[in-house]
């Protein structure tokens, strides 16, 4: 598996005629097993690298040793230090601008913000190359921003096509969580949904008899998939996705095999990360810390060679 550094540096391969899959198999490194999905933790305005994985003399916190000789990380992450051998640490990532959206765009798409062209995100590229798994949406973004859409757009597929856009799910920690559009409103019964199809067929009959296009066929495929997702009890409230999200939040979750290829998870509010005031240590219960730990535990459980 090529190092994560080269994965990030690959940039645009299109003109070389290589798909990502071909590149990955061509760039043969030590055979450690192939990744099948990615969880991207995007901490929009998260804790500083100086206080976490890249300790410097002017940090407020002390560095501690890890289970890898020669690597030290901040004292705020003692549990992670015990699993350091499973992580590849990249400390040299930097961006030209010092603006959140610019840097987000650069890291997610590999390109600087360019008015002449919009580039697809990492998640969309992976989704396109590797496809979905077990009919679950391949590209998921959680939680979706409630504020401006600007950042969310950077995670989109742009010219690769709307089918590779992320499915945006609200914050599972908030009360009244449900996966958007996946649960029928209380006022609509299952029978009503099925009844609607009859009307729809009557209305569209004349038009579709004239001119059946590929677009129509695709839309039909998506509609039947959507109906299945909404009407199947397993998928209805609370959804499988939602359940697994809740579990992960409490630190006990496993990564299910029927799961998206690319999760982007992150929190906007700084207090969800680590406090930067001196003499206060990290709150063990914060989502960031928990989730990192959960993932590391999962990785350890699932891998033998890692």
């Amino acid at each position, binding site marked *: 598996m090529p190092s994560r550094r080269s994965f990030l540096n690959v940039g645009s391969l299109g003109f070389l*005629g290589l798909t990502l899959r071909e590149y990955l198999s061509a760039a043969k490194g030590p055979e450690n097993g192939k990744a099948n999905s990615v969880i991207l933790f995007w901490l929009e305005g998260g804790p500083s690298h100086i206080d976490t994985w890249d300790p410097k003399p002017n940090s407020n916190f002390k560095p501690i040793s890890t289970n890898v000789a020669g690597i030290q990380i901040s004292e705020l992450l003692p549990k992670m230090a015990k699993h350091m051998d499973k992580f590849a640490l990249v400390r040299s990532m930097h961006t030209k*601008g010092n*603006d959140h*959206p*610019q840097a987000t*765009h650069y890291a997610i798409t590999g390109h*600087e913000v*360019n*008015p*002449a*062209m*919009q580039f697809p995100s990492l998640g969309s590229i992976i989704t396109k190359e590797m496809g979905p798994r077990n009919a679950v949406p391949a590209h998921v973004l959680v939680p979706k921003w*409630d*504020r*401006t*859409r*600007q950042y*969310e*757009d950077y995670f989109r*597929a*742009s*010219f690769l*096509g*709307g*089918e590779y*856009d992320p*499915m*945006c799910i609200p914050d599972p920690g908030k009360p009244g969580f449900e996966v*958007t*559009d*996946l*649960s*029928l409103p209380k*006022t*609509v019964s299952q029978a009503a*949904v099925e*009844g*609607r199809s*009859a*009307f*729809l067929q*009557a*209305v*569209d*009959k*004349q*038009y*579709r008899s*004239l*001119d059946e*296009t590929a*677009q129509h066929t*695709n*839309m039909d495929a*998506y509609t039947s*998939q*959507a*109906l299945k*997702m*909404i009407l199947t009890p397993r998928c209805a409230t609370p959804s499988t996705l939602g359940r697994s999200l809740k579990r992960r939040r409490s630190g006990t979750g496993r990564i299910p095999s029927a799961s998206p290829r690319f999760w982007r998870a992150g929190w906007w509010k700084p207090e969800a990360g680590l406090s930067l005031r001196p003499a206060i240590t990290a709150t063990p219960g914060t989502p960031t810390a928990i989730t990192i730990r959960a993932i590391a535990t999962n990785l350890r459980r699932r891998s033998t060679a890692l």
Partner: protein
Amino acid sequence: MRLPFAILLITGAAWAAPQVVSLRTVPAEATLKGAEATQQFLAIAKYSDGSERDVTSEAEWRVSNPGLAKFISAARVAPAADGTATLTASFSGTQARSALRIQEAHTVHPVSFTREISGVLTKRGCNSSICHGGVKGQGGLKLSANALYPKDDYDWITKGGAYQVLTAEVKGKRVPRIDTANPEKSLLLLKPTMGVAHGGGKRFDVDSEDYKTILGWIRDGARYDDGSGAAQARIDRLDAFPKTAVMPADGVHHLLVTAHFTDGHTEDYTHQALYTSNNGDVASVSGDGVVTAKGRGETAVLVRAAGQIATVGVGIRGPVLADYPKVTRWNFIDDFVFEKLHRLQIIPSEVSSDSEFLRRVCLDLTGTLPPPARVREFLASTDSHKREKIIDALIGSPEFVDYWTFRFAEIFRVAIFANGLSPKWSEEYWEWIRSNVEKNRPYDQVARERISVEGYSPAARHFLPYNQIGAPGDTMAEEVRVFMGRRLDCAQCHNHPYENWSQDQFWGMAAFFSRLFKVGPVVIDHPTNMDLSSKDVGGSLDLLHPRTKVAVKPALLDNSSLNLAPDGNPRKELARWMTSHPYFAEAAVNRIWGQFFARGIVDPVDDFRSTNPPTHPELLAALATDFREHGYDLRHLMKTIVSSRTYQLSHRPNATNREDVTNYSRSLARGLDAEVLLDAVADVSGMPETFTTAVTDGAAVGQAPVGTRAIQLRDPDTFFSRFLELYGRSNRGAIPERNSKPNLGQALHVLAGSTYVERLGGQEGRLSRLLKEGARDEKIFEEFYLAALSRPPSSTEVSDLKTILAQRSDREAGLREFVWALISSREFAENH
């Protein structure tokens, strides 16, 4: 009993076979100068049904005086002695003649790199963009694609060394790739003949003409030019004949390529050019320029030589129709479109019905569905000029202004983060765009202002992404893409791999924006005699070429002369040049055309390149000329388009045009854009959408006034709308490329999303009003059909709907389902 009928058919067909009426040879006259000159000829036969066919390989060819010229292949002559002769072709009882003049038949001119060697490198694919002509070259050898820069190629070959993309420095020792002491040991000969390992394989044999040419060239001293001392004439352009070749499914067509040189003389280049077909499934092309039909459809054949490109449109038609109908034409657009359809033997559909036309023209001109009252009025009217009148009424209407402000706000990118991070500045920018649309300001003036503006001006706001001046290369690439329809981006780091844009050209253009500077929201060109920079603001005035590290001076793409005052605003000159350049009018016309049809004449609308030729080049040129002559009046252009019969064709296919998607033989259904669709849903249901901004933890921070339509949203990216996201609203961080292909998110939203659910459960709106009035079922069906589809329901539809409704125990709930079905249907969601 079928047999006699079959016999009748066969004899009938034989009797109808077209006869050869006349023959012509192309070219009509030719001059061969020098011993190596050759000339290819074509014979074209004309048939009684009006079609033409290339019969070059079937005709008999003779020269009047064989001592002067000899045939080296079927219709290709080479000189033997000076003089004049006649070439005759005979086919099926007809004859044609061409005049031939031979001069300097014994003069052999020495081989030069620029002519012969570059030609071999192109023809054998050495400098193609997948080999040494690619961005990095191959194996250290970099050649210019299509031999655009022969001097550089000459240096890399004769001096050696390895090419590096990001710097002009040569990597490693310079070892020449030719060996003048032992010519056969030159790498230039060993590699392509596989004398040593060569990733590109064998390009020619040791006993081939090309090998001998290169060997002779090295032996003679490997000259760059032909040693005559005279200034070398370069190829100015390539002319390919025919410009478009239409042939049947079993057809074959020879191509003839003439190179026009800078000193005025012409040469036959048919066998020196490199041919590629854009689509091998439609037609293939041989190394000698013979096009063979493979399957029905259209494609282009590209002809390359010496840095120039010519395109030949190729159309593979079905069988010639016995009775091609006479098709009425309404304006010049129809002349070009229907003429091409005739050649392709495709019959255009009938004119659209009144309801098809009304819905389409309202959506295309105003992004708004016509209300039921207007639909009834239009359908009932017997005025024979009603379509003209509705067009005049729509153009310039308030909805028209809203809609085109929205369209231009997209292309010009109105967004807070793109306009200086200030809502106020962004709003002023939007107001500027809106006033241009309202006043129908000539488009060239708008473009000039946007490119060259300075000071505290709303038109300058697009120069301030994230409240900084954008990189000059990016800024320039955007202006060129928006106003000239060309994408120069690839040429930023290296010569463009497919097109003729060089890195030098890119940076020469970017230099017009290199002094762009801002002080708050004030955009100026930094004066050259003082330094306004501070520790926070960089004030470098020089734009360095990223490869050569030399300061670049502003230079126009076509190298036309510049008159730049040292401290002036160089963008004024750029704007003047851009708006008077032919690219400007054709790009503008193409962009607007793309709004009224399923595709631009060049598609994507801002991606003009040699490998993406226009489907109707003469139409594009005529529209551009008309646009220019009418003072770049956008409303006039739109009116011309929608008044054509081509635009008003029905979307119903007939037997001949069902698969045609490029030739406007019928109207093709297009999905409605997100904003238009949302407005349509709101209009039909009678419940407007509310747009709120920056929702934080459920508390709405700001709300657009009630009744605001999606196309009226000034700065869409701060008004959150799940619907618009799902249906592909662009974020305006870059030139928008809308993608409204169906996806799972849309399907889920239609079934369970808030946009639909809220409207179905609401107590206001059209349905509630009708129910309160006590309207009968038929009235409700009719009202909604008129609102959504601009047509009354057919009697079958009414009876089907009544039957389904009768099965519902709750009439109101049933009607709500009907409304849901209507606004989820394809007929509603598409513009057809």
